[in-house]
């Protein structure tokens, strides 16, 4: 059970200062637009937090582009909107933190081969819900999600969208419960990413064969027997290797119920 409210709250309240610049080639006005500064929840997704920023930049771009889809890049690397913001930061700036995080805003030249299209927030919701479902299949063979009602799913999504911790956790706690004899999850939903954004998703049990709790270190040595010194970062922090996986999954998962860990 995810019952360590102190940690949950700290994770939930994690925010990133971001500075958005409009890409030079987009600017159609003589006057240079001011950069747009904003504090963004680490757990959220870009399409949910950029409405104000978009309005800010719209009057500086050509009218014919105003309806086209906006996308972001960091140092020339297009950012995938379907990953949580905090994870994207850890992936690209984790080793070399620079705040505020400076991102460039584009309205043209959508990189079709890299990014998925995101016409509206419903797409984000659909993607989000499917990820939660996938996580639940790993954790409880999908039993929790299937017993939830539609309004519970809604509450989960609205809680995330409106940054309401209690609203979100009222439902999410059910997803974080262990079933059966308190043995923990079936498997831990986690993805381990290398620097280039490629991830590795394996079936990981929260327990060792002798029924003791598996720690992060034990998982690392199972997955990377050849590497000696592996650190994993999530939510901007390096996880101590002795942390039990079950606890990690319950408390440090993103709202999509996955642990997104970056190798470093």
């Amino acid at each position, binding site marked *: 059970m995810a019952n360590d*409210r102190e940690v949950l709250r700290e994770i939930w309240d994690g925010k990133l200062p971001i500075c958005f610049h409009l890409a030079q080639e987009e600017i159609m006005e003589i006057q240079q637009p001011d950069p747009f500064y*904003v*504090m963004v929840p680490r757990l959220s997704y870009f399409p949910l937090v950029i409405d104000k920023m978009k309005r800010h930049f719209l009057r500086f771009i050509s009218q014919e582009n105003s309806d086209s889809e906006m996308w972001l890049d960091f140092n020339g690397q297009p950012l995938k909107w379907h990953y949580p913001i905090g994870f994207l930061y850890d992936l690209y700036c984790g080793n070399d933190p620079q*705040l505020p995080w400076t991102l460039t805003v584009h309205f043209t030249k959508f990189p079709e081969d890299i990014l998925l299209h995101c016409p509206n927030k419903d797409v984000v919701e659909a993607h989000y819900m499917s990820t939660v479902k996938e996580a639940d299949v790993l954790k409880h063979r999908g039993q929790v999600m299937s017993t939830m009602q539609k309004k519970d799913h809604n509450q989960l999504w609205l809680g995330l969208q409106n940054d309401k911790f209690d609203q979100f956790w009222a439902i999410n706690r059910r997803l974080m419960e262990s079933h059966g004899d308190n043995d923990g999850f079936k498997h831990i939903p986690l993805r381990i990413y290398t620097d280039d954004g490629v991830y590795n998703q394996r079936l990981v049990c929260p327990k060792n064969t002798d029924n*003791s709790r598996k720690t992060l270190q034990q998982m690392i040595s199972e997955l990377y027997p050849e590497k000696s010194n592996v650190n994993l970062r999530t939510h*901007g922090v390096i996880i101590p290797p002795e942390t039990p996986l079950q606890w990690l999954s319950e408390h440090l998962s993103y709202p999509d119920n996955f642990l997104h860990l970056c190798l470093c």
Partner: protein
Amino acid sequence: MSANSLLFSINNEGKVYALSTNGSCWREFMYLGLEFKALSAVPHFLWAVGGDRQIYLHVHGLEIPIRVKEESYENERWLPMEGFSGRLLPTDRYHFSSQDGTKDRSIDHIRLPSMAWQWEGPWQLELTLDGQPLDHDGWTYAVDFPAQFGPAKQWKSCVRRRKWIRYRKFSAMNSWCAIAPLHKDPTQEPFIDISIGGNQMPYASPGTLVVWAITAQGRVMNRTGVSTTSPEGLKWINISIPPNCDIKQISVGPTGLVWGLLWTGRTIVRKGVTKDCPTGDSWLEVKPPQDTKLICISVGYNVVWAVSSDSRVWFRKGVEGNNSGTSESAAMGNGWLEITGNMIHVSVGINDQVFAIGEFDKCIYWRCGITAAELTGKKWKKIQANMQLSRTSSSASVVSSSSNTKHHSLTTLSETEPEKKTNLHLRNSWEESHSAPIEHTLPVKPQRQSRPRSQINTEKIDLTGKSYETTLKNPRAWSPVRSVGSVVGMEAQPDSDSSVFDVDSGMLFDDEISQTAWGSCETTWSYVEAGACLVDTVQIPHWFTDSHKVQNSDITAGWRIQILDYLRNRNKNQSLDFSDYGIAVEDKGWTRSCEARLVQANNSTEECIISLYWFDLENTGTLSVFQPDGTIKFILNLEELTSLTSVFVSSEPGCPRIVLAVPRQTECSIKIQFMTEFEQEEWLKMLIDIISQINGVTGKPSANSVWAITNAGDILNWDPLPAKLSNKKDGMYKKEFPVFGKNILSGYSTSLHNNFPPGSILKIVGCLFDEVQRFYIDFTGPEVKKQRHKIETEVSEIPFHFNVRFDEKIVVCNTKIFGSWGTEERHELPLAVGQEFNIEIYCHAQAFSVIINNKSYCIYEHRLNPESITSVTIQGPLKLYSMEYCTTSVIIGADEMFWRLMGGHLRRVECCEADVVWGISHDHRAWVYTGGWGGGMFQGISSNTGIHAMTDTHTYCVYENQRWNPLTGYTSAGLPTDRYMWSDITGKHKRTREHTKLLNRHWHWISEWMIDYNTPGGVDNDGWQYATDFPAPYHGKKLFTDCVRRRRWYRKAQINTEGPWIRAGNTALLDISLWAKGDEVSVWAVTVPGDAIYRTGVTPSTPTGNHWEHIDSPQLLMAISTCNNVVWTIGRKGELYHREGISVENPGGTTWKLIEPPKSNLYSHKTTGAKVISLATTVAWVVMSNGAVAVRTQISKEQPGGKEWRYITDSEISFKHISSVHKDVWGVSTDGTLQRRLGVTADNPAGSSWQRVLTGAAVYTSARGGSLC
């Protein structure tokens, strides 16, 4: 949190160990010097077969001694010449007889049943009759014997009788007690097996127990007369078994069902075991599973488990404990089912939980996943608990003391250094429980409390040391035992023995030491007995490696602290200020609405839509109620809401409602009915969450809180601390009254919640109209009754009347006492018409001083005590801008009290000024508040600490009524004027079994409808009680004149919830009272059987205390209250007693003294019984059986009985509960309204009037935290 219970087992050395469900270590159960072969237990009673093949009994863990009252009536007849004498007529009863006169009860022939019993004192006379005191000889008089006896001797009184009483006590508590052997020579017919059960036999009276045993000659013996009040029973009787049956093992289930196992591997079952015939009537045979021989069986409530010789485990399907006495198939079951696992021994515990010993590792396993629906469970789980090294092995002798190391025993001195250290640390937990077989020890209670502390240590050590030596010198001198009930082994200090009965202190030792002291579980076990073991399947004990214990330690684990630390410092590494960054997600309030029904006063409902709006940043919210067409009915500001409860109107469960109290808007509360329980719970949770945030209350309330219980068992708490802090200024408390715009012309009156004692100030700012002629300010006191011309009128005292008369150009000050004005004091006019003004009135010790427009104006000396002022009235043609009231203590009106739901389910709650809160649930168990908040349906909104699982049980009763008619006998066809044939106890309400519904989805039935054979008044074999007509006294035997009969059916329901409460002690309680002085908290309670007890060692840091001390009382009690070392109780007949001689040294006091009973009201001469008592420092508030309230004044330590009764005459409200301390007096009136007494002062301890605080459904309140201090 379940209570502590014990799992017993025997290791391969024959030593008995116990594992507590609250602990995690095996502790050796008192070693007797002999090994044990077999055990059988129910809670508190452990029977065993010793290595000498004799039967031993161990009674343990009872907080209340087992006492039996012996009674004998001394009868005398009046004879001419001699007067009253013991010479009776030949047709009369015995000189000393039982109450009905049929038995000879000569007091010199009433003997102790065995050596295990002791008399508590000599024979005593009972000096009261139905609560009325008798003269010193205790005689009661009557015309002839079978008649009504009265206290007064009359001319026609021909006989008299008096009652002698004497208590005997079971003194072999916490010790092994030998049961007499069958023959003079104990070796002639030794025993081979023993089994106890029957503690849940259907319909049997509480306390019934059944014991069966097998002798080496193969005879089956039943012990008669065993019960919780007679633990050793009376004698063995032989029960014949079918020929060719060689019996080996026997097992009795909690329902009394008996299975026997034969040497051939077959089993026999006893048929017809019922409450009337606990030995059953014949044996039936049950075939073992095919091709196997059974070697061990154990009977549970609805199960039988067995192990066969090839170590396979078998489960018997179809056994039903409730019907096992009447149905053969329910007793025998209908088939064996193999369960995986290889075991050599199996034992079924409470709730059909199963424990077994593994074949290969000889470890004990628990079958997890057993529920009432799935009796076979899921899998075996190994119990891995640490092991206390044997106390009797030479490697760990513990007769040592850290305070005086010279007292080490010889064995300790020879030990190595680390082991010695161990002993020192373990001393506290071991020394007291040190056991030694002593032949002549009697249970002398240690005189610890009465001795100076310095002597205690030496005393204690001598005692244990000596007894220890006795063992060494002469280890077998006491054995075997020849007489019944010999006490063969005693705990050195039975009352304070902490060995196996407390939560083990294993966690207190640091790791290194615990390594040496607690061996890991290498022991091989040979026997396990679970009959007394209650495993909570929700919160399983810390016996398994993957239990909660590991996870709780996560909070302090290094990696967690590291992660938290990293997280907090994430953005701090950069020295940038992000405070002017915009927020990405616009923070808005959120709304939520749903369809519901609004409940009107006449219980009709109308459709509506409720909508909640909440904006957490601004801390504001509204609750709007719309009509279905969208027009607004009303909008509530959530800040004005003061209480929120879920109330289920008892006549119609299944109507989930929320009741909102908004005293600033309406008098009555607003009831909203929801479509489903889920919706109701969700809204309740949401509203509580929001309102707690608005009011800024989270976590633990302060010690001064007022607690209350609603009729749904919800616990409410009002904490005065936030209000105290917010209206405090310069040491004064200030309240502004909303006067702006009020019509003063017709008079504005408001109550002064704290009266107007010296130090109080009233400030008024306003503007006079041009046409003003007069205006006045009245400080009004309580209403008094005045008789004039035989007509009673109610008049108010006016201690201070300030009247400004522009027409007479003068100011008049006066006082109205008892309806008439005194001498006027006149002053010059300080004000002009049409002017703004500002008046301040100060109350000083001697006089009022009035300051007008910042200039001192006049002084008015007190003629009445200003503390009696309860309200202020202003009347005149003027406009008020503000009115401010300041006093030295906190001012809180009822409309400002926010009542918070605390979580849990209780019947009573009691608090005191030292932050200790106890509660009693409906099933009479005691609970202590842990300091948390939430649980149950409020999961997730509150603290997680201190929330424990909680259960409570309700018993529903319906009465079946029948009337006799000459043709058909008794039928359910009554007369048209009769009560309902299925009714409640009064007969006025129809109640049927089929229509009895549970309150909500958290309740579930735990029994079927059963006939109650223990209805007061006695019943016949079918549970009927007879009477001549409805409402009449009922009796159990049918008489010729009886025309009606009734019987009671009951069914039990249980709620599973969570709350910030933890169990304290196993004793069932009826009433409890707490009082704190500094860190010492005295806790007195009345047990369900009616004994007075007090708790030792209760402090704010250890709110559960240590254990109960029992106080002998001649009468059965029902209520208790304590304050300032004074204790009052109420007997079952409503009589009041106080306890003499209570002091710090002797907290138990010496004797009970009867208190003069109060009258039923001021004008009556009849006295009435009391039902509720609450003691304050100098007064006692008593609610009488008619609901009226009386106050006993001038109680002090010197005069603990008080001096005189005063009666509350200002109102007709009748009460069901009252709670008082200092000047705080709170009551619950019969209609469920919470009331507060105003105007309580030192001079007027009875107060002046009741103030309604919370309308609704309260049943209990405790204001003993001193909310106004």
